[in-house]
């Protein structure tokens, strides 16, 4: 098989699976699951062949639409960046598929679920392969759609329905900018092909900023982060795959794709957005009681890290002088962001699947204060989850997260002290809330019936955990990948000296230590009791955005809509139209009333007519 065929196979397998499920297997959930998992396994195998086969940048492009001089094509740009992303998506995707076999075993709408997963894989891979912005946008939207479907899986729950709706609409807001950016880019440069654009393009900050809007939506950056925590209404595997490992990372991936278009001012905006998101989400995570929400906020936070990392790539010198050095510098941002994306994909997927395992084990109990003592009930989950926690808090050399976080902190330290400080503080918070979670879930004694009857899931659930745990451990060592991703790995900034390492260690210990001090495995939130003021502030911080948005939706948008509707119904349809027709009707009544039935009145008309005509002939008019 040529690489092109492989790529197409990778792309079309999940689509075929989705189509088959939608058309034929709607009622056969088990079969649908098998088909979907098989498709995913197949695509993973082919994808890995493709990735490790070493073929890169093979030409593949087909025109999809042409109107006037506008042409939209579908093509494949397969460089190391894409290969890396493909590998991540394939591996994590496969893990989640397999995990879902167990997790969703008893679900009544398995076919829909697995169909959705397949559509998602198709869409996500489309983004990965895309060689132009329009194509990215197309799959971008599809990804959003599949996310909507999957969040909405438990559609009989109002909260799930609301969350799905919210996710899609918020993403649409981001896509508003994204699409405008693409269109602007098209008219500015005459093309949206990534390769061509990389070669030459018109510098403009508006284009990258508009495109970044897309990433803000998809990667849930401030101020569009609100949908992601709510998206946890979806089944946990979905959260793992879509809302942690891959889809939300698509924003980062897209940014890396359009990296050549960046300008310093755009990068600065991006950097601060990422930093703010990282910090904000970390603060929010502290007060969460729901295991998935904690993870969701941590995802947000880590995404903020990645965005910040990308923005940090900016080095103020970029574009100020020509030459290779600045190019290297910005690419550092790409390297750091992608590196963190990779490790995060592994460990966050691991943790989400772990939480899934916990939730499954606890009979769909998600409140961490009602768990506890799962260390002994679910040892494998405990072990793998612990690895995940270690990874995210950046335990040096033990887990993958360390390396990527290290790279980002290093970059920040080099570029911007303020950002560095904030990110470091975020890291403190991260280890604080992750350890809190870990303590509450796994240590102590079970605090509820569900927790005390917890049990490990089947092989299909544990196997992915193990695989991801392994990856979370070794994933940080870039050497293990061979040289297939060198195009990306070579961009990772490497800290020289131990300063960053020390900082990393310090923040990790500080956070974790505080958590150990504050929290005991108990049925109440220790922080809330010890520092209610702080806790309240954090809760308020978390809810502030929702408040604002809810206020907007309920009080502004809805009222504005009602007002316009009122104007339409009363003003336009009522006053103008009905009034106008009423006026005509009155005229009609008047004209009708002229026929009074009295002969004399009619003779007057004749008199009038004769007189008028006489006057007319006499030249009065």
């Amino acid at each position: 098989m040529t690489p092109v065929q492989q790529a197409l196979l990778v792309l079309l397998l999940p689509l075929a699976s989705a189509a088959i499920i939608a058309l034929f297997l709607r009622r056969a959930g088990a079969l649908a699951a098998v088909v979907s998992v098989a498709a995913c396994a197949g695509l993973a195998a082919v994808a890995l062949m493709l990735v490790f086969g070493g073929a890169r940048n093979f030409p593949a492009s087909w025109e999809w639409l042409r109107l006037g001089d506008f042409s939209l094509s579908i093509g494949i740009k397969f460089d190391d960046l894409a290969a890396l992303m493909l590998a991540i998506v394939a591996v994590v995707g496969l893990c989640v598929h397999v995990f879902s076999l167990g997790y969703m075993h008893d679900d009544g709408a398995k076919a829909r679920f697995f169909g959705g997963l397949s559509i998602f894989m198709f869409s996500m891979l489309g983004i990965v392969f895309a060689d132009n912005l329009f194509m990215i946008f197309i799959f971008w939207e599809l990804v959003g759609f599949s996310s909507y479907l999957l969040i909405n899986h438990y559609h009989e729950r109002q909260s799930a329905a609301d969350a799905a709706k919210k996710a899609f609409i918020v993403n649409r807001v981001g896509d508003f900018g994204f699409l405008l950016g693409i269109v602007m880019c098209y008219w500015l440069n005459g093309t949206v092909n990534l390769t061509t654009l990389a070669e030459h393009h018109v510098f403009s900050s508006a284009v990258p900023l508009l495109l970044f809007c897309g990433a803000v939506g998809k990667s849930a950056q401030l101020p569009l982060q609100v949908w992601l925590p709510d998206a946890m209404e979806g089944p946990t595997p979905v959260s793992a795959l879509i809302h942690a490992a891959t889809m939300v990372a698509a924003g980062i991936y897209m940014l890396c794709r359009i990296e050549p278009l960046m300008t310093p001012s755009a990068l600065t905006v991006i950097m601060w957005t990422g930093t703010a998101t990282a910090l904000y989400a970390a603060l929010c995570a502290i007060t969460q009681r729901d295991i998935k929400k904690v993870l969701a906020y941590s995802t947000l936070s880590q995404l903020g890290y990645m965005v910040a990392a990308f923005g940090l790539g900016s080095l103020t010198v970029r574009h100020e002088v020509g030459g290779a050095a600045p190019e290297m510098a910005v690419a550092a941002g790409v390297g750091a962001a992608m590196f963190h994306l990779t490790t995060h994909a592994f460990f966050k997927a691991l943790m989400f699947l772990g939480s899934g395992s916990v939730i499954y084990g606890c009979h769909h109990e998600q409140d961490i204060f009602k768990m506890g003592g799962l260390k002994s009930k679910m040892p494998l989950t405990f072990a793998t989850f612990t690895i995940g926690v270690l990874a995210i808090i950046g335990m040096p050399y033990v887990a993958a997260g360390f390396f990527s976080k290290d790279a980002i902190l290093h970059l920040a330290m080099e570029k911007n002290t303020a950002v560095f400080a904030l990110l470091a503080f975020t890291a403190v918070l991260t280890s604080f809330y992750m350890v809190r979670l870990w303590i509450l879930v796994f240590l102590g004694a079970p605090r509820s019936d569900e927790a005390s009857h917890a049990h490990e899931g089947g092989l299909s659930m544990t196997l992915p955990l193990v695989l991801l745990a392994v990856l979370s451990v070794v994933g940080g060592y870039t050497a293990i990948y061979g040289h297939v991703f060198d195009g990306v790995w070579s961009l990772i900034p490497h800290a020289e000296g131990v300063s960053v390492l020390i900082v990393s260690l310090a923040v990790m210990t500080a956070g974790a230590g505080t958590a150990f001090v504050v929290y005991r495995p108990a049925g109440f939130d220790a922080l809330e009791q010890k520092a209610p003021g702080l806790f309240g502030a954090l809760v308020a911080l978390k809810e502030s955005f929702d408040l604002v948005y809810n206020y907007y939706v309920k009080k502004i948008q809805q009222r504005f809509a009602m007002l316009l509707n009122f104007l339409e119904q009363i003003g336009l349809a009522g006053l103008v139209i009905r009034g106008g027709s009423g006026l005509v009707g009155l005229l009609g009544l008047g004209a009708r009333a002229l026929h009074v039935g009295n002969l004399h009145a009619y003779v007057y008309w004749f008199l009038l007519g004769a007189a008028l005509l006489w006057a007319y002939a006499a030249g009065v008019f």
Partner: protein
Amino acid sequence: MSDALFYLFAFFTVASAIGVVANKNAVNAAMCLMLCLVGVASLFVLLDAYLLAALLVLVYAGAVVALFLFIVMLLDMQGGVKRPFRLMTAVASVAALALMLVGVTMLKNRGELGSLPAPVDVGAPVGAVLKGYAELLFTTYLLPVQIIGFLLLIAMLGVIVLSKKFEGLEDIK
């Protein structure tokens, strides 16, 4: 002489015409109409239209007005019921009069009536005129004469339809 006659007849005619309009009593109105027609017939004579004058008196004053009178009697109206004077009537009448006056004044001012012809002296004897009249009627205007025949026929039929008692048809209320 004929001038004086003209003004006499004209006054007579107009006066009796006003009588038709102004008279409360329908019988009197009919009588006035007859007088008016006689006046017009006199004017016809002044205009040398002797045949028409005769016809007018015979057909109109004789037959038509008689018919009117007959009907008035038949219907036996209780005089004119006094109706309140209508403002509308007055306004419209005044307006119409004013319009007409304006029209006549403009007519005068334009001096266009000055272009009216002076009388052509036919000079032919009455008999010759009558002959020409008859010739016209039965050559040029033969078709209208035929049509008039039909008109009279349908008028007669109409009166029958509207008035005649048809056996068995009349008694529906």
